[in-house]
């Protein structure tokens, strides 16, 4: 099929579309209002709740920091506080970047480029976020155990003999899974960026 034939086919189609029954005007406004309500309902509740939980934990560790007697628990607590503050901030910033594209002001080529760059950033944050999440899980238990008054548990060498290998194995498996999972998505966005040039 040549482009001229396509054009003539498209013109026929356009004519047919124009002839069809149009959506009632009242319904158009109703669609818009409903869509507005549904978009408000889908405000990132999980992301906000996750950030509140993280901030709560960070505050808890900060307020009880002087109670840590074991040096490595102080280090773990600091690592936890850092991750629990940095992770939600990075994640929410990346999401904000993806949503800040102005579809009414910019051209599709610009939108596509900005959106894909933000998307790559978002998935990279997600990738590192999951890895840091694994580090967080690994470093969370010892300080929590100390704060709960079960200090003897973590002073027992058997605990560490089980905890360190299983923790490292968990981080390794999760990291491998996350890299595989997000590799395709990031590559697809990068390919899309190359196509714009």
């Amino acid at each position: 099929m040549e482009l001229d034939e396509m054009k003539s086919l498209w013109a026929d189609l356009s004519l047919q579309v124009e002839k069809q029954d149009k959506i009632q005007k009242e319904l158009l406004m109703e669609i818009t209002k409903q869509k507005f309500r549904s978009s408000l309902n889908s405000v990132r509740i999980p992301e906000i709740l996750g950030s509140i939980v993280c901030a709560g934990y960070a505050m808890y560790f900060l307020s009880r920091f002087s109670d840590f007697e074991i040096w490595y628990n102080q280090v773990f607590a600091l690592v936890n506080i850092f991750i629990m503050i940095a992770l939600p901030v990075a994640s929410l910033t990346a999401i904000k970047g993806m949503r800040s594209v102005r579809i009414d002001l910019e051209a599709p080529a610009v939108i596509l480029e900005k959106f894909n760059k933000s998307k790559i950033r978002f998935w990279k944050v997600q990738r590192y976020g999951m890895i840091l999440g694994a580090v967080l899980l690994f470093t969370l238990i010892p300080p929590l155990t100390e704060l709960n008054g079960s200090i003897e548990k973590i002073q027992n060498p058997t605990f560490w003999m089980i905890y360190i290998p299983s923790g490292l194995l968990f981080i390794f498996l999760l990291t491998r899974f996350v890299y595989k999972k997000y590799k395709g998505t990031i590559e697809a966005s990068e390919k899309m960026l190359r196509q714009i040039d």
Partner: protein
Amino acid sequence: MSKEEQFVNLIHENQGLIYKIATIYAKEKAEQDDLYQEIVYQTWKSFDHFKKASKPSTWLYRVGMNTAITHLNKSKKQLNTLPFDQVTIQFSESIDSEKEEKIQLLYAQIRKLNLLDRGIIFLFLEEKTYEEIAEISGISVSNVGTRMSRIRQKLKSEMNPKSTTDGTR
């Protein structure tokens, strides 16, 4: 005329345009309905800019294409369609089956293009000049030309593979 009335009139007059954008960017009927509603909603959200736009037709094409690009990128599998019985244009008259088949083939081939090229061929089929396509899509006129010849080759080979291998037109 109130803002709501102006908006409803604009959408009412351009339903065919929105329908065509939804159809070239989404394959399934449910996805098309979802995209159609999203374009209507995004048009309302940015309607104040429309009133200030120097070229309203360019503006609507842009909003439609930009919504399709961002919406499909954001949530490929998350449909958020509202339960209205008739949210897209319904064909009450039947088109002859041969033509219908060709239209479906045309849509299918356009959907194989990347998101930007889909918009470019759409504008071309809408009888826009290269200058207008460049203005709406945000690329240079020479880039439109390059892309068009690439798209032409691709569509030609995919819609009629025999003719390209034979070297016939």
